[in-house]
């Protein structure tokens, strides 16, 4: 079953086509990689899918629903959350506060956001998540005190805590050491075990090919192919796109 369907998605900036007629699908409870050379339009595609950028044309169908012009925050509330290529934590908030804001969905009710101060339940969730990423000791540290790799893990943890069914990770392995990379990998596999669906942009090919069930390839803003990792790796079109012939 297709959990996410991208139909003819296009976006141009001042005449430059960043994404053009893009189409691919993501099956439920799979890990799908999204690759392409630099400038292929992967991150723009993420921004369009999650509605952080308005599309020029095309359609995003998530869990059978055409998302049309739904605002980005409502897309998250529908169950599709993402991380960013450039980490976007709140540096002046603690790690706990960063995570609380993601898992405190009951506070979406305006009145409760003033009155509800017992956060024991959320704290349990946060502690469990911090144990998974081995960062519990940083719970009450400011996010600005974390290293790049730790920040990356907290951003992924925050995205997971939104309880999204479809998680889009933008370069989760970039700039982090092998130990943390292993943690990211474990986290992604555990999400899949829990029934979640994951779409990953990544330049670390051994990592991506090792975790993906399917890989989508983009070139110059367009769809190039979608297949199993082993087939993608040996496809001459992909080699040409990366090596330039």
């Amino acid at each position, binding site marked *: 079953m297709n959990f996410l369907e991208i139909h003819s998605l296009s976006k141009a900036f001042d005449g430059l086509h960043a994404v053009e007629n893009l189409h691919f699908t993501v099956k439920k409870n799979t890990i799908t990689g999204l690759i392409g050379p630099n400038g292929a339009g992967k991150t723009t595609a993420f921004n369009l899918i999650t509605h952080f950028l308005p599309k020029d044309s095309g359609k995003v169908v998530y869990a059978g629903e055409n998302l049309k012009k739904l605002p980005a*925050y409502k897309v998250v509330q529908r169950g599709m959350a993402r991380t*960013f290529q450039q980490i*976007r934590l*709140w540096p*002046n908030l603690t790690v706990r506060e960063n995570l609380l*804001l*993601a898992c405190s969905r009951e*506070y*979406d009710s305006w009145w409760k956001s003033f009155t509800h101060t017992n956060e024991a339940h959320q704290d349990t969730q946060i502690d469990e998540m911090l144990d998974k990423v081995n960062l519990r000791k940083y719970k009450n540290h*400011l996010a600005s005190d974390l290293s790049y790799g730790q920040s990356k893990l907290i951003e992924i943890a925050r995205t997971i805590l939104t309880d999204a069914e479809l998680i889009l990770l933008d370069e989760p392995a970039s700039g982090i050491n092998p130990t943390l990379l292993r943690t990211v990998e474990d986290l992604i596999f555990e999400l899949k075990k829990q029934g979640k669906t994951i779409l990953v942009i990544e330049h670390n090919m051994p990592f991506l090919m090792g975790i993906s069930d399917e890989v989508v390839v983009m070139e110059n803003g367009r769809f190039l192919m979608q297949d199993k990792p082993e087939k993608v790796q040996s496809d001459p079109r992909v080699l040409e796109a990366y090596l330039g012939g």
Partner: protein
Amino acid sequence: MLEYLLSLLILTTIWTLLTQSYNLSFGLTGLFNLGHIIFYGIGAYTAAILNTDYGLQILPNLIIAAVVCGIVAAIFGLLTLRLSGHYLAIATLGAAMIAIVVATNWMDLTNGPLGIRGIDGPILFDLQITESWQILLLFLVIAGLCQWTLYKIFHSPFGRLQRAIQDDEIAARAVGKNTFLSKTWSLVLSSAFAGIAGAMYTHYRLFLDPTIFALPEIIFLILMIIVGGRGNFWGAILGTILVVIIGEIPRFFGFPDSIIGASRNILFAALLITTMFYRPKGLFTLFAKKAT
């Protein structure tokens, strides 16, 4: 001397509430709204008109002023809060200038530059409060209740979201938060408390004219918040008190009246520059509640 001190304390109480109200939208949420003084003025005029035309007294006037300011702020927010940074600052500054023009020219409503006279002092349940110390006590109770409510807002999940929006609004949307609505609520609440401060001012000064909308007032509000520390609850209170004290210093050096204003501005500028250089997060960061 005692009357001077009491008067200063009453005005400080009002200003502290006004600063704290601005600290919510500017300090906590990060809205660079240069039109906050509009709501202080609207609150003041609401109380003045209700009192002189309809005979309503301070307590209902405080509530109605808050509601009126909240409604105007909601409309104001819908029109301006899609903007951010300098664009928001320019738009709100423009709105503040429009407010002065309206207050000066809408004679039927505001009596224009002649102002509104004959406003009653505080009357509580038919009891006229005339002594300055009694007014101070009453205002301390009212402002104290407002400050307590604002404290709760600052330290609630709503307050946490406002800090997140100030840090990175896109990240807040990425966890499913409706940031536009949150910013609008911040502006509405902030303006409602400014309206209460304005109504208190009206019932103390007993006269009101369009100078209440004077644009330089916003500079003092920003100064008090920067000195105290943006988004720092106790900092806003201490920043206001410090600025009021520093502003009074030239009076005690025997300067002629003509240069008291100028020397005061020099002191404020020195305070602002010193703070920005040496304690950019405010002089009272020690009093900031430790994040938990």
